[in-house]
């Protein structure tokens, strides 16, 4: 009797130990869990530090502020998973806002203007994709080139200076709300859900992972590598175009200087979110968390009145931290 009791308590201890162990393992094994915890800790700290932080309005502001960069970051996640990179996204944001503005001011209807904008953005993606996948040129180089090229075209189209435009519907997209939630947040969530679904459940999504994992194996397995990679850059272009439309809708203007440095902001969020620079690995949920962490840090600093120069320093620290963690994890 005594012995069996003893063994029972031993077993209970063992089970308890297993639970704590499992919990610890989960935390240490899943990067996403760690990121979520970091996010929560950040929210808690900032709530203590500033009375204005933990309010619905502020959270809405944070999400609203991440809509444009978030959409780009989701696309960038897909591009990195395919073992590519797209540095032209910031320029495409400006270029699409310019196309939208100019077409509306030229008296074209909104549907036509939106169509032209989206088509223009996809064309840039097609251009990048052609060089990257058909001519097999390093995506870093090509998109570095198109970054400058597209920015230049944006300036040429609009004539150097930002120009305002007016459209009720666009205005509503930029600053309207539905059920108390701003429209750009719907756009952000819609892109997240659709792209996550595409990446996880479709042949295309799995091919992107496969190509990023091992392009040669992909080719020998019968994957149409060229077509898939072109498509990746086209979707990236489309998403940058949507981000550009949102930005134009928030500012009621076509701004050729908009979106400067967005490519690096997106990369920061994506890498912080655990996507591997070598390709083949990464998840949009991680990118969402990465984007939120960056936004929380910046927002918190605004709340606390930290000067802009110091914010730049902290952003740099986040990038270096994210990179170091990413490298060490491999």
């Amino acid at each position, binding site marked *: 009797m005594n012995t069996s009791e003893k063994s029972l308590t031993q077993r209970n201890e063992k089970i308890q130990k297993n639970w704590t162990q499992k919990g610890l393992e989960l935390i240490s094994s899943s990067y996403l869990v760690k990121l979520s915890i970091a996010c929560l800790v950040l929210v808690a700290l900032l709530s203590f530090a500033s009375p204005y932080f933990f309010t619905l309005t502020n959270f809405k502001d944070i999400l609203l502020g991440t809509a444009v960069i978030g959409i780009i970051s989701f696309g960038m996640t897909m591009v990195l998973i395919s073992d590519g990179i797209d540095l032209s996204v910031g320029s495409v944001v400006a270029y699409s806002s310019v196309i939208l503005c100019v077409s509306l001011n030229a008296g074209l209807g909104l549907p036509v203007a939106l169509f032209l904008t989206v088509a223009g953005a996809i064309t840039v993606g097609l251009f990048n994709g052609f060089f990257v996948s058909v001519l097999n040129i390093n995506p870093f180089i090509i998109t570095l080139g198109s970054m400058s090229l597209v920015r230049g075209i944006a300036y040429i189209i609009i004539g150097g200076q930002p120009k305002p435009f007016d459209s009720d519907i666009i205005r509503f997209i930029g600053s309207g709300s539905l059920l108390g939630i701003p429209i750009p947040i719907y756009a952000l969530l819609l892109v997240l859900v659709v792209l996550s679904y595409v990446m996880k459940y*479709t042949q295309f999504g799995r091919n992107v*992972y496969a190509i990023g994992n091992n392009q*040669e194996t*992909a*080719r*020998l*397995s019968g994957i149409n590598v060229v077509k898939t990679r072109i498509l990746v850059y086209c979707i990236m272009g489309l998403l940058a175009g949507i981000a550009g439309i949102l930005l134009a809708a928030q500012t009621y203007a076509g701004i050729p200087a908009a979106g400067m440095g967005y490519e690096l902001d997106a990369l920061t969020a994506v890498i912080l979110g655990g996507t591997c620079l070598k390709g083949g690995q990464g998840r949009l949920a991680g990118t969402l968390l990465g984007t939120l962490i960056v936004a929380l840090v910046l927002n918190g600093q605004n709340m606390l009145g930290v000067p802009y120069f110091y914010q730049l320093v902290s952003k740099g620290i986040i990038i270096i931290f994210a990179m170091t963690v990413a490298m060490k994890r491999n």
Partner: protein
Amino acid sequence: MNQSALRISNIVKSFNGIKALKGLTLNFNKGEIIGLVGSNGAGKSTLLNVIWGAYAPDSGELYIDGERIEKITPTKAQELGISIIFQHRRLMPYMTVAENIFIDNMPKKKGVIDYKKMRTDAKELLDVLNLDIDCNIKVERLSAEEKQLVEIVKAYSKQPKVLLMDEPTTALRQGDVERLFELMNTLKSQGSSVVFISHRLKEVMEICDRISIIRDGGNVSEGEKLDYSPDRIVEEMSGITATDFEHQRDVTDSSFSKASQEVLLSASSLSVDNCQDIEFALHKGEILGFAGLGGSGVENIFEALYGLKTHVDGDIKIDGVDVEIHSPIDAISYGLGFVSEDRQLNGEFLELSVKDNICIPKGQKKRLYSVINRKEETLASKGFIEKLNIKTDSEEQLIKNLSGGNQQKAIIAKWLHLQSKVILMCEPTAGIDVAAKSDVNKLIQQIALEGKGILYTSSYITELMHVSDRIIVVYQGRIIKVFSRAEYDHNKIYLAMNGINEQIGAKHEH
């Protein structure tokens, strides 16, 4: 002249308890060219790595110039005048030819690199060897032959006391082989010891003074070249004598599949790269083995069939219909599958699950936007895991966490899932352990029994004989002989791979 330049005695080296070298003793004299011969797995590369100081031997001694060297490192080996040309090239692709030649011995002037001297020295060396290579271009732009030649020049430039070369002629053309031989003779006359490791018996017989034969990590024999004939070398390498003939055939083997007369795939007057007039027919249920030394062109034939080569001439028929194969996508659409020689390089998606690895090729039949049928894929991969006895805890496990043999089975499973009619298998058992090898080979025979056609290569003749129903021997890009199972003879196959063929020999007499 008969002074020892390099001597090793009783070297033992084991990996995970398996002895790769079992007390090997070798002596290389100054002013001599020694042919070191052994079949695959005899321990040649382990030996080179021990001499080079990359592996520490478990026991045994190493003497250079009669002096015992306690612990050798790559730097020390180089200082002592040992130069090795490894089978896998070790040049820096983005540096120039001259820089590569002098990479570890840059000429200096006032403490900085003297590029002018480096270039003139490099040019001089290339001229001595009569090589038409520009020493200012980057190595990545050279052809495979030229790279091998640069490697040779680099080793030569150090004026080594001992030069060890592992299969240096595999990538070379005939004219270049002759130049290499001239260079070896020059080194020999300067008193160096030159060790020529090769499968090419004709070359060994032509250039070497002495021959050392090793087998299974131990010595077999050693002596003057004149005492050896190709037949003797092959017998001693394989350990199979002509009288053992019965022993090596296993016609009665129950796994011997009976190929039908139905032709699945045929090639006629196929030419690609160095290969010409390739002609064969693969029957349903047949395992057709291809044998050839490195550089013979067997891999070119396989790659051409799978659409990986750009310039292919000749006719390929699948199920009796002429086909043009320009890409793997074409090949797959005609019912071909491909198991590559290097799994990790281009055979599998290491970071993806077993299920994804099995199901991705079949998924390509669907449209890009179509949704993956997860239930169906799980069911299918579970089926293959059970049927092929793939050891994994679940189909969702990443393939990299499986053992080599099980990874290879999963790779084969993807072609079964796609219902390929013909599977091209390049060295499907490379890099997996002995037990797993036999497992994979059994699986391949099983697949053939179920009516697939298999093209199969292996650098191990015994394995090739065990698995294949016929063996086609390719020598210098041509089919030199076809062995039916009844004619199987390890040593004859090896001789044929060396271009030594009884019938052809007889023809040439007249």
